[in-house]
């Protein structure tokens, strides 16, 4: 009897484990397209007030992406190219392309609460984390993601709320190594684009005492999944070529 019981417990935890993995995998598959074009607005709120950045992005898988800033006027034409783990920036005002050095990877990207590294990293939750189902209802699930021992991630854990039917996350809470909350990401306004469901609003809130007032909100205005994007976007020449 004891044997049977322990067998069931092991089996069920195994099942739970795989179910959690399945859910996360479904979410990632849903969000990732072979190609994606998007026009978005990023609203950065900080101690000195609010500002809006508008941009377009073209991406292929999650190794290549190209971003162009449209607004504010001052920044218009600034382009970013990301190939694998490297990132370049072109600034039309000075007509220069520079490669973002490793020492800058953890600096803020465009003054937002995202770092350059956030923009570059092909962090796959399935690859880097072990998923465990914490709770589940018919429509939603809460999953705990613990980094795999050798995953190069700074987080201690991530708690993800998933909308199961739409295969999108609704909330992600990031913890540091001491299991203190560091930042919260929320996702809302889910819309269907071709075969993908996408939350059109993403908001990031850092929880460090110093950054209490900060937040970064990304609003997708136009999304196009699965229309092939010309390879010319993913070369260093594109930085200048597509700048205006």
């Amino acid at each position, binding site marked *: 009897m004891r044997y049977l019981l322990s067998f069931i417990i092991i089996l069920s935890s195994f099942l739970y484990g795989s179910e959690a993995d399945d859910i996360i995998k479904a979410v990632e598959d849903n969000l990732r397209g072979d190609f994606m074009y998007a026009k978005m607005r990023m609203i950065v709120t900080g101690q000195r007030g609010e500002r809006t950045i508008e941009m377009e992005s073209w991406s292929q898988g999650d190794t290549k992406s190209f971003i162009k800033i449209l607004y504010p006027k001052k920044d218009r034409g600034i382009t970013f190219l990301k190939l*694998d*783990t*490297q990132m370049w920036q072109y600034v039309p005002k000075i007509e220069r392309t520079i490669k973002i050095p*490793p*020492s800058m*990877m*953890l600096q803020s990207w465009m003054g937002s609460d995202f770092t350059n*590294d956030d923009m*570059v*990293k092909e962090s796959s939750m399935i690859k880097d984390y072990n998923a465990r189902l914490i709770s589940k209802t018919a429509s939603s699930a809460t999953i705990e993601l613990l*980094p795999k*021992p*050798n*995953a*190069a*991630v*700074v*987080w*201690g854990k991530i708690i993800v709320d998933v909308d199961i039917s739409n295969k999108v996350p609704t909330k992600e809470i*990031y*913890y*540091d*190594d*001491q299991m203190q909350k*560091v930042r919260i990401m929320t996702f809302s306004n889910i819309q269907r684009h071709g075969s993908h469901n996408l939350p059109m609003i993403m908001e990031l809130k850092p929880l*460090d005492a110093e950054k209490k007032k900060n937040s970064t909100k990304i609003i997708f205005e136009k999304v196009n999944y699965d229309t092939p994007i010309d390879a010319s976007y993913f070369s260093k020449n594109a930085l200048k070529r597509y700048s205006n």
Partner: protein
Amino acid sequence: MYKIAFDLAWKSLIRRKTRTLMVIMMIALSLSGLLFLQGLYDGMVSHMINTSIRSDSGEISLYAKQYRLEKTIDYHIDDPRAIKAYLHQSKEIDAYAIRLSGEGLVATAHKSLGATLKGVRLEDERRFGDFDTFLFQGKFDFGPKKQEALIGFKLAEKLKVTTGNRLVFTAQDASGEINAISFRISGIIKSGNLAVDEGSVFVSIETMEQFLALPNSATQIALRIKDKSQVNSIQSMLQKKFSTLDVLRWDELYPLLIEMRDMMDIFNWLSYAIVFAVAALGIFGVILMSILERMREFSIMMAIGTPYKNIRYQVISEAFIMAIAGYIIGAILGLGFLVYTASSGIDLRYYQAGLESFGLNAILYADIRYHYFFQAFASVFFATSLSILWPLHVLKKIKPIEIIQGKML
């Protein structure tokens, strides 16, 4: 005959015991002070040299040419196996450590800082420089899967991390790709070598080779030489043998330390010179006085046929009995200070920040070396000899008859 002179010297010292004691105390106290200072300063410098050798350079280090200048992994030693095999069989070399280092960024969920990631073998480092004794907190271990790291204590302070915390290290690999790797902190290192304490993270060299995509490579091979007097000749021998590499001695890698040691030596000699020049004056005063006081006595002795050299012997004996007594008391006192300071140390934790910013321990330990006592003896001997020259000259010019008649003095 000399025995009588010696007895007389002894008696005269006892008769004027106040001034005898003053001279002995003067020699003893200043000598013990000097010994203490010398040991303390030597202790400081040798501590710094020692930690630099043990935590980094060894007596000799091998680098790829250009590496010292550019500090990038583009300049690494390819395939150190042949060198390793050679070092292994070499009788002159006590231990060696092969390291593969890369510069990059170390980050937590809150903060990131520039740092050096050093791939090492702990077993080699232990043999190389008792590196495990630098462990300040935690374990001296990279864990079963080599995913743990040791971190310098100042860096840990700046990142606000401790053992058990996770770090992510980002760096460019050999092909220019930016990669990241994570470690859990197993231990915190406090070595006294600023480069180590402020900016180094130690991980297993195998992990590092993979991370940098540099299998079988090294940026530094540090050697411990058995016979320290052979360092120079071994260096030139190694340089000939490995002509494509830079072969550098520790004092070439840390020129400042050797400068400091030289400065301290000069300072010590200068202190001895000045203190004993003054002390000689003190002895001189007492001896001259005692001669002048006893002119009549000496004159009578000479008049009854005592040879001049006996009287001279008596004066010399007086001076040296005081000097030797002073030396013995001073040496014992100094040794006491030194033994105490060498074992218990002087606690300067109040000034911790300042001392550590200079690579010194907050508790200072003295060195004790034989040569201190020889040097001290030589100084006392020299000062005493010097101090009696003039009094003896005065003594020699004695005209016994005139003095007895009261014409002199």
